[in-house]
């Protein structure tokens, strides 16, 4: 299972990657593989203020609908519009083209409290 070391993770299988003063959020390779074929992604409104751990998006596969949680508190400033036509990007390229939304964090240090790649690998191992 691919777990890049250039970003951090949550125990609920989101990844978070700094981009300037923003945090880009998506779901991990393990998460997309567990969900199966993604057919719809419901993204948050731009401008919405979110708490860490708040359900802010939904990824729907053929089988099920799965909530996506904000890794850090802040404001949603951009969403991945490409997913409206190509939700399968979440399966094919979960760490790049399949990103979900960007957050301007309320507290810049919140990112550091997320799991690093090694910590997340343990979470995946336990659930495999």
């Amino acid at each position, binding site marked *: 299972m691919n777990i890049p070391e250039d970003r951090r993770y949550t125990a609920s299988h989101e990844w978070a990657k700094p981009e300037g003063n923003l945090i880009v959020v998506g779901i991990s390779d393990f998460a997309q593989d567990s969900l*199966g074929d993604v*057919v719809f992604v419901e993204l948050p409104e731009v401008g919405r203020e979110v708490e860490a751990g708040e359900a802010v998006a*939904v990824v729907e*596969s*053929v*089988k099920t*609908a799965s909530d996506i949680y904000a890794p850090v508190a802040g404001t949603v400033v951009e969403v991945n519009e490409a997913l409206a036509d190509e939700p399968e990007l979440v399966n094919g390229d979960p760490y790049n083209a399949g990103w979900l939304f960007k957050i301007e964090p309320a507290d810049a240090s919140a990112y550091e409290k997320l799991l690093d790649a090694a910590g997340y690998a343990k979470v995946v191992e336990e659930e*495999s």
Partner: protein
Amino acid sequence: MLVGMKRTPLYDEHLKLGGRMVDFAGWALPVQYTSITKEHLAVREDVGLFDVSHMGEFFVRGPGALDFLRWATLNDPARLKVGRAQYSMLSNDRGGVVDDIYVYRTGVEEYLVVVNAANVAKDWAHLSRLAEGREVELEDASYAWALMALQGPRAEEVLQALTDTDLAGVRKNATLTLTVVGVPVRIARTGYTGEDGFEIFTTPEDAPAVWRALIEAGVTPAGLGARDTLRLEAGFPLYGHELTDATNPRCTPLAWVIKDKPYYGREAMEAATCDERLVGLVMERGIPREGYPVLSGGAPAGRVTSGTQSPLLKKGIALGWVREDLAEEGAELDVEVRGRALPARVVRPPFVLLGKKK
């Protein structure tokens, strides 16, 4: 994970093919091998193979076998010649369904009843009780049989290459014994996908050889995920969802199953009124899921019992119970998806055109 799960005789084949194993009614079975969508489309356009060995098989034998099954089931097995099969249901005495089943007449005084895996113990107890004092012998052969379902427009072509018996004359709902890759099997031209195809009964020992021969012939292995989306597109009910101990089949599109003859629980079945009807729902936007509320003008109107995005239509489709006065074909209702009412149109299943043959 999967500790203590029962394994079908094809368990090792699933692992070899990379099947993602899950717990289904206590059985370790693959939910998918590669992708539910790909496996679904393979069955609709080409041919796929399912392991359904978890299903239960009962034999009913003896001079009283026909009378017993006429009493215990809603369809009429008196219509079955030897080598024919019918969809049917076991009724309870409260106007509900114990299980939906398939009844095969395998001999003059012998019937094979295939039941849902989750209901084997319940059905066995129910049938054993109804059989008391009758000239009938019941055998639970669930562990004596493996069962595969070969489904799709190319099913006949693929199976024909592996047997000397001419399959062109084997009609829908026919069953017979023959030899496939040197192995004695029983086949039936039946299935749960809406496509043409065969269900293949073998001994547990012979199952892997038949499975491998079909996979080597180019058949796509398909898991429980595709099995569910295929049956839903075809509008078939799944016990525990559309049908339960408390649902009256008279209020569903399957009312045709009930034949006018004495049967167990008939009085209760006919006394109940249909306050709700089981219908199909199609949504242009949003994906309906089990348990989602159905609304009419914002007011409660029913609930979804099974829903998904149809891989063929790429639209949300569902089966669900809807208030009787709103259940007309074409009625415009809503399904509540995460707090939002999204339009849903009442249709009569199947949701897609089915059963083409190549």
